[in-house]
């Protein structure tokens, strides 16, 4: 293990390390801690210039209550869920298949197809903006959650294929060989042998994609426009415009908007880290 395990070092360094850890963490998360404190402050703290001091009174309930009950935030949150979850499922379906195809079979175009996915995924997506907007308009999917979901699935397929393919490559190929010897059909190999092995990778990928999609701002602005379809990242900007300079409300709103991926990450942490480990180490 590198660096040297703390248990094997001197007592002083052990103590220093133990105390350094929380300090470093507080410093690292200072920006977040500050908006957390902002979000429970009363309005008067800001007008009186008490920005960074201790809240003069606890107004957390009032502030968050306003976000949840007097604004469109719950609607936006629901939209985000309805956009993110189908996207994650769609990506898992598509990329487990493409990843399987590119990871298991050896055929001439294999590498080229793979590179197409990878290259497309690396493209600065702003360049797709104008054509994709037109496309979505023409299909009548502009300002619908469906339109956004379809595009997200397509674009994320690039990344997910890369992810799944590399993972499948690392699986023991003998397993598949053996199955073929048995004469098992290819789709059954996929379904019964490879897919169960892919579970940790799929879980990890799901968390990643969930985070990406939940946090997407650009496409939300380009492809949707109202509270009936916009996700929370776009919603938070209109929320903020409505409460400009009401720092306590903006903070509370931002925290609410940021919470789901954070919760997701903490809940799925094991899969997340385990998946990344499995995926990254070949």
């Amino acid at each position, binding site marked *: 293990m590198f660096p040297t395990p703390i248990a094997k070092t001197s007592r002083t360094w052990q103590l220093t390390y133990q105390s350094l850890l929380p300090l470093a963490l507080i410093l690292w998360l200072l920006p977040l801690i500050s908006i957390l404190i902002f979000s429970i402050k009363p309005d008067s703290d800001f007008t009186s210039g008490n920005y960074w001091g201790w809240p003069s009174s606890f107004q957390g309930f009032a502030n968050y209550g306003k976000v949840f009950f007097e604004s469109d935030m719950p609607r936006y949150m629901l939209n985000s869920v309805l956009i993110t979850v189908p996207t994650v499922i769609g990506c898992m379906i598509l990329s487990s298949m493409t990843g399987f195809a590119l990871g298991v079979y050896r055929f001439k175009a294999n590498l080229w197809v793979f590179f197409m996915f990878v290259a497309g995924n690396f493209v600065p997506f702003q360049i797709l903006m104008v054509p994709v907007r037109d496309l979505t*308009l023409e299909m009548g999917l502009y*300002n619908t959650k469906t339109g956004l979901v379809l595009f997200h699935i397509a674009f994320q397929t690039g990344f997910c294929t890369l992810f799944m393919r590399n993972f499948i490559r690392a699986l023991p190929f003998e397993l598949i060989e053996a199955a073929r010897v048995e004469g098992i059909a290819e789709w059954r190999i996929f379904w019964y042998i490879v897919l169960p092995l892919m579970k940790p990778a799929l879980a990890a990928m799901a968390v990643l994609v969930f985070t990406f999609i939940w946090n997407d701002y650009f496409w939300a*602005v380009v492809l949707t426009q*109202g509270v009936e379809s916009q996700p929370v990242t776009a919603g938070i900007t209109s929320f903020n*415009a*409505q409460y*400009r*300079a009401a720092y306590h409300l903006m903070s509370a709103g931002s925290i609410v908007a940021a919470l789901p991926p954070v919760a997701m990450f903490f809940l799925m942490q094991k899969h997340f880290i385990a998946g990344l480990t499995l995926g990254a180490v070949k």
Partner: protein
Amino acid sequence: MRSNLKATVATLGLTMAMATGAFADAHAAKLSGDLVIFSDMGNPAPRAVMEGMVERFGEMHPDLNIELTVIDREAYKTQIRNFLTANTPDVANWYAANRMLPYVNAGLFEDISDLWEGTLSEELASTKGAMTLDGKQYGVPYTYYQWGVYYRKDIYDELGLSEPKTWDEFKANCQAILDSGKKCFTIGTKFLWTAGGWFDYLNMRTNGYDFHAALTNGEVEWTDQRVKDTFANWRELLDMGAFIDNHTAYSWQEALPFMTGGDAAAYLMGNFAVAPLREAGLTDDQLDFYQFPMINEDVELAEDAPTDTFHIPTGAKNKENAREFLRFVVSADNQTLINNGDNLGQLPVNSKSSVDDDKFLEQGFQMLSTNSPGGVAQFFDRDAPAEMAKVAMEGFQEFMVKPDNLDKILDRLERARARIY
């Protein structure tokens, strides 16, 4: 926000129809079907106004299913082109003059000259020009507001200053304020247009309304000596240090606390600034208004008074309902109501409406109707084409930070002018 008001409107309409039968009967033809409205009135007060209008219109037409979507004002500006081409509403907010040109050119705004025939043209005569392109009208105004200098009367009184009438007084006042350790003006230029307001006033006072019109129409070179004169006047203020520091980091709202906190004595702004200033605790004894003073004696005073409007997109599905709604919006009664101090706090366009007895509205109305002989401009970014406005206002912002770059900036603007027009 999309509120499907049908249910509430239906029940309300029933009770209201009995109570105010006469009022409802005035509009003999009851509408039915749908009416989809997109609005940019996202701030709390305007939003309530918009929702109120929809409710009242719904009471008059209980069978009409009205859907209102309110979008944040800044976001609306980029989204409008999307929803004009797909998912088109029946009625949409926008702005007058050149600001509507791209959509008129693209055939996305309906020609509603028919609506303007007859009495409406008289009642709305003051803004007919701003709604007209190629001899046709493409929208109706619902409100306008004056621009001018909003100042802290208490600070002026304390320093023994009075409202300036001339450029020299203006500068002398400013010097006195600076000497007292405050700034003369607050401003937030992050979104650029606030600097456009300063340019408009300095330019119209230095060169007059006609020059403003010619410049925004691309008929004058930006490197013209007269433009440079305008900037020279501006520079005098900059060299004095009249404006707050770091204005590039603030939006116009974020610049308000400097005024409420007493660090700056005045704000060149539209009348919509009054509401948040009052909300922040300034009383009418502390807050007052004056017209931007004369600079060049040979030039008649002219003002900025932007008009906000309603339009019918060409792709609208319920154009008849939309036309009826527009008639309702411009009616004298409605304009009186929505523009009063409790609602928008702005000026009604309809000449038969009455102006609320709010201190600032009365002063503004007075100023625009009697003391603006040079003319009334919309605003820099509404009179100039979008692209030119963007480049130019960016130049204004740069000038405010780096006045020495003026020649470079003007060269750039001139190149842009050559390309755009």
